[in-house]
């Protein structure tokens, strides 16, 4: 398979689209946790009970369509090879938890891969929807409609006082986790993000570094999401998150401008060095790749590099993870072999831009 072909299949269609503020916001996600009433939650449920729920979804929702989300395909985890599961995790279509407890778990995926409905995760149902760029309101509206669509056929565990009942008390109420994935290179280079985090926490929101331990973020990619799910409406939660993200976008833009004004040549040097590493390295670890890709993307956003599309960061952050590398190689690879593969995949991908 050619790289072009592999990429076409590997990258979800919605990821190739541009969204509002997509120079900083990579994607917006809404996740709703729901459970069947009268069924024990998956953690303690008997096999038969879990199978019943699985069969219910297969019967009622397989190959169904709702709005833009066509032909839901049911993917049972037990029918997948480990590397296939890993790829689904790397595409964020299923959680690591779902892939691990694979005996009775599955996911319903819409054709455009924008919607994934996980079955028998920690809760019976986890509806997930993604939009490119900063589109929280739209994501919430669509998620809520999908939720109504499921509710036509499912009796949810719901309580007037506590709301949607979930296995973990951290999700009860709305069962909603709204999150936004942001590329914040200037705020993290200047250490401003660390200073802003406590204030953001005060608002019941969490900042997490992605692809790194704790709050350290390898590719300068951060996920901002709500922690509180009880006592506030979905709209209010999303509004709070929205306003914080809006401020972060403004701050990041300002920090980029300041960096360019104050140390333009140093920044340019850093960006082009990273570009050079990506173009020429023969061995590259994921950490270094993430750092260089972040620099490259910043260079594109600052118009220092103009022949490479913005989507390169999203794309290569996903393609250079272990699961994808092994799928592309069609072999199990040791970490050392992966680093070699990663370097050659990145070179090949950048080469595609030169040919055009």
């Amino acid at each position, binding site marked *: 398979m050619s790289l072009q072909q592999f990429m076409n299949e590997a990258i979800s269609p919605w990821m190739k689209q541009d969204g509002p503020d997509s120079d900083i916001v990579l994607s917006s996600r809404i996740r709703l946790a729901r459970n069947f009433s009268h069924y024990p939650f998956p953690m303690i449920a008997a096999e038969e009970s879990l199978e019943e729920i699985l069969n219910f979804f297969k019967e009622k929702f397989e190959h169904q369509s709702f709005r833009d989300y066509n032909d839901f395909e049911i993917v049972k985890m037990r029918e997948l090879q480990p590397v296939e599961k890993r790829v689904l995790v790397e595409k964020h279509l299923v959680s690591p938890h779902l892939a691990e407890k694979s005996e009775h778990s599955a996911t319903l995926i819409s054709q455009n891969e924008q919607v994934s409905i996980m079955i028998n995760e920690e809760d019976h149902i986890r509806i997930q929807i993604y939009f490119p760029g900063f589109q929280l309101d739209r994501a919430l509206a669509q998620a809520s409609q999908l939720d109504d669509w499921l509710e036509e056929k499912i009796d949810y565990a*719901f309580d007037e006082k506590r709301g949607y009942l979930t296995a973990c008390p*951290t999700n009860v109420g709305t069962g909603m986790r709204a999150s936004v994935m942001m590329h914040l290179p200037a705020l993290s280079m200047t250490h401003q993000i660390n200073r802003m985090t406590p204030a953001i926490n005060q608002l*019941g929101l969490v900042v997490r570094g992605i692809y790194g*331990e704790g709050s350290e973020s390898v590719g300068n990619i951060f996920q901002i999401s709500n922690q*509180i799910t*009880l*006592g506030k409406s979905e709209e209010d939660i999303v509004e709070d998150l929205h306003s914080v993200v809006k401020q972060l976008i403004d701050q990041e833009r300002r920090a980029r401008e300041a960096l360019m004004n104050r140390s333009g040549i140093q920044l340019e040097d850093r960006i082009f060095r990273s570009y050079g590493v990506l173009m020429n390295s023969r061995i590259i670890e994921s950490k270094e790749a993430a750092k260089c890709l972040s620099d490259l993307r910043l260079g594109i956003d600052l118009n220092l590099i103009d022949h490479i599309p913005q989507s390169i960061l999203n794309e290569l952050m996903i393609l250079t993870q272990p699961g994808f590398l092994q799928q592309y190689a069609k072999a199990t690879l040791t970490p050392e072999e992966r680093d070699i593969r990663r370097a050659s995949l990145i070179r090949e991908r950048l080469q595609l831009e030169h040919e055009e």
Partner: protein
Amino acid sequence: MECQQCHERPATVHLTQVVNGQKTEVHVCEQCAKEKGYMNYGEENFTLNDLLSGLFHSEGSSPFTGQTMKPYQQATKLKCPTCGLAYQEFARIGKFGCGDCYQTFDDRINPILRRVHSGNTRHDGKIPKREGGNLHLRKEIDEYKVKLKTLIEQEEFEEAAKCRDKIRSLENQLHQGEDGEN
């Protein structure tokens, strides 16, 4: 400094946690840290387990004393009739077994919910369409009542009258619905 957990070994693990803006300091020995799961990183559950263990002990006197206390002992007998999950087990894993657990452990979970959700214990969001029934009406009435109050404050009496009529008609609808159910 001695370990807050076992009060035997010296505290060598010092952690500061910020959850919803509340800062907690933890000083424990390595052994206790491992047992309590403080050595794991990044898991959402870690925070919750920590909150839970802190809470159960603090119901009596000071946190982390490790002594068995009365409310805790009472709680251990509590069991969900539907799924069989004991309260003690819930306290250990921080997960419910079924929807009915919320009813069963009702009074006991308020402090946990308050900690996790910035003081909130009651749902104020979406209501399922089919199942929600009268909840939708009641919510609508509440919203009109808030509106009515603002209108009166702003001395918009004509609008306020309309709003009051709307509330009355919704309340009638609600009572009819409730009679019909019986």
